């Protein structure tokens, strides 16, 4: 069985760890998170020029490195661990994935090299309903002339106020649910788009509101078939879900590691508090969650690779993504919450970084559906679908 990193993958993971430990320090995170932009453009350029991270899983024919989702997930895990403030997730895990899944070859040739070279992007699909399924799409698209007229607003769009390229979902007027949805790729400075930063409790991840006031887009901006956008969008969301779960595992691990470091130096009643069994057992429970979460994202990453390559196991993507997101959301929240508790009073201060993890745990938990949402998705698969034997077969 080869369910472990190859030497090359381990090298990519270790390089990411070294790079981020040096450049996404507590001071760097705290400097970036109070700006409206939300990230340091110089660091973005280094990630692109020195590390080629934006190009990582984009195929070579579209200007990328042609690596896989496993490499991407290994890197995202480190980004979560070091609280990286960056439009990387929005650009690579939302916009690039959207193009990989839904774009024509010509569209890929046009846009993917731009993203690989450092253009920022994101995916806009969520309205104000707070849902993460097809019903969330509220913006409408009406055929007009050679193209479409888009009207409505998006909320909770990652880095939506700074992204240069937008992939957006819109629905035919009067359509409901999964029907009538189309995907478009457009420049963010297209006339009629106004964008507003939404200040957030977790300051390490940016969100924005986008208002489309009669935005006219050409037919060439359409990704795939008009009205048939839900299936590709669902796949894009699943890929993005795997990616955010990787960020969560990194955060869950770092919550444990930084708490351990504190426990080993804090002395009460004449001994380090790491020596108390009540404290040790909590730390052990945190490690169980970090390790089990890691197993879940590595598996989901392998499935994502299959899905992007059109392999047979790709059909498991929705399930693997929900398993990873359900578990890792709860694991990160548990670890960050325990982290504050085990830090005692200083855990409640702004000075110690554990509070930043606690906030990122919550924002990533909510984003793309929390544990309960993904468990209900799995419950539908297990309980509402075909007979049990067939389900078992499908999941085996």
């Amino acid at each position, binding site marked *: 069985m080869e*369910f472990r990193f190859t030497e090359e993958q381990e090298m990519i993971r270790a390089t990411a760890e070294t790079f981020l430990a040096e450049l996404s320090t507590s001071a760097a995170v705290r400097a970036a998170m109070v700006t409206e932009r939300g990230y340091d453009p110089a660091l973005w350029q280094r990630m692109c020029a020195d590390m080629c991270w934006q190009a990582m899983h984009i195929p070579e024919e579209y200007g990328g490195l042609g690596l896989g989702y496993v490499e991407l997930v290994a890197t995202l895990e480190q980004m979560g661990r070091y609280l990286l403030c960056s439009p990387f997730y929005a650009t690579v895990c939302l916009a690039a994935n959207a193009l990989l899944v839904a774009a024509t070859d010509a569209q890929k040739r046009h846009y993917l090299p731009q993203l690989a070279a450092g253009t920022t992007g994101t995916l806009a699909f969520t309205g104000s309903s707070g849902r993460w399924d097809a019903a969330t799409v509220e913006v409408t698209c009406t055929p007009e002339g050679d193209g479409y007229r888009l009207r409505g607003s998006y909320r909770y769009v990652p880095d939506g106020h700074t992204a240069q390229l937008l992939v957006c979902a819109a629905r035919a007027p009067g359509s409901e649910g999964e029907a009538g949805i189309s995907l478009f790729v457009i420049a963010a400075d297209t006339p009629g788009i106004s964008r507003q930063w939404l200040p957030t409790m977790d300051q390490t991840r940016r969100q924005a509101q986008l208002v489309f006031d009669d935005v006219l887009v050409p037919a060439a901006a359409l990704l795939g078939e008009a009205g048939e956008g839900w299936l590709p969008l669902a796949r894009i969301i699943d890929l993005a879900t795997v990616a955010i779960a990787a960020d969560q595992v990194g955060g869950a691990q770092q919550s444990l590691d930084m708490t351990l470091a504190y426990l080993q130096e804090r002395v009460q009643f004449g*001994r380090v508090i790491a020596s108390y069994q009540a404290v040790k*057992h909590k730390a052990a429970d945190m*490690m169980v969650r970090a390790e089990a979460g*890691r197993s879940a994202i590595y598996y989901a990453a*392998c499935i994502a690779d299959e899905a992007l390559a059109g392999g047979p196991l790709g059909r498991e993507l929705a399930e693997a993504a929900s398993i990873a997101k*359900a578990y890792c959301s709860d694991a990160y929240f548990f670890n960050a919450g325990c982290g504050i508790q085990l830090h005692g009073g200083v855990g409640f201060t702004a000075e110690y970084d554990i509070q930043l993890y606690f906030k990122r745990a919550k924002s990533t938990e909510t984003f793309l559906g929390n544990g309960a949402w993904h468990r209900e998705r*799995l419950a539908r698969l*297990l309980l509402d679908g075909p007979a049990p034997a067939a389900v078992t077969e499908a999941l085996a």
Partner: protein
Amino acid sequence: MKLSCSAADEQFRQEVAAWLAANLCGEFESVRYRGGPGDEHSCVGERKAWERRLHQGGWTGLGWPREYGGRGASIEQQVIFNEEYARAGGPGRIGHIGETLAGPTLIAFGTQEQKARYLPGILRGEDFWCQGYSEPSAGSDLANVKTRARFDPDRRQWCITGQKVWTSLAHEAQYCFVIARTDPASVGHRGLGFFLLAMDQAGIEVRPIEQLTGTSEFNEVFFDEAVCGENDIVGAPGDGWQVAMGLLGFERGVSTLGQQMLFQNEFDEVLRIARENGAATDPAIRQRIADAHVGLRIMRFNSMRMLSGGGDDGSLSREAMIYKLYWATWHRNLGKLAMDVLGPESEILDDAPYALNRLQSLYLFTRSDTIYGGTNQIQRNIIAERALGMPREPRG
């Protein structure tokens, strides 16, 4: 990192499945799915005959070296065998203590004479073993063994006196391996010996322990000047702890996927009932069923990591260290979920006086999962101390 297995292993899987399909039928149809944890007392005669059938098929001593009559199967093949065995409903293995504990210990630490004398009977499915470790005052604190071994120089034999407890299958076994104190002045893990005793002798009395299930998988075993030959000690007097602990390294997780197949069978039963009795429409039950599914899938991913070569240096990897705590807790929760899915019907027995159905037995028996083989509390100590490097508990 990849998920597929080699063509040779796939062929091996088919070979195992075909053999099981051709043999686990007819006279053995009645033992399918029987004799597992919580049911070890059932169908003993048939399951002993089944061990001999397994031997005829060349399936005993699967991982043992060929020079000792084993099959010399790789870790992957052992995993595959266990998985297919469980999938086919293979009965609980009465021979497993001999095959996975006694045999490997003798192969690693035994003399040529001991190997020649004891290994063939284990392989043939004729000699069954039990394990004499725990004592009333040596549970989690296993090194606190009080059973004494005295060498009688006149008769050239060892005389064992003391009491063991929680001894599975003691009433069915021909042999028992026992750790006992060779140096009466010693304490803790020093001064112990590892002995091989025939069970059929006047100095040994087996008394079943009636459990909260009403059945008796476990026994107390009383030794009153029980004897074994001077050559029936493995290693030297004083080496018993090292020999006993050497056993723990042999398991290596090969049975984990088979164990998970049993869990899957149980989970499928819970799913089936939930769909039939309407529990599947209860949102709280749906959440818990999905959570159990997430837990079981991640258990599998975790094992895949474990089996892909963590701990090449002989030490346990982090994912291996969480395994016992993780599965035991998951399984115990499944037992409770099963009762809650059954609703009021969960109270109704199959028959008086106390015939539990399969899920009731699961519910009650899984209370032992988080106790035997190292309680959850001991597991958390081990994780905190060995994996996280937190200070060791003071030992009296």
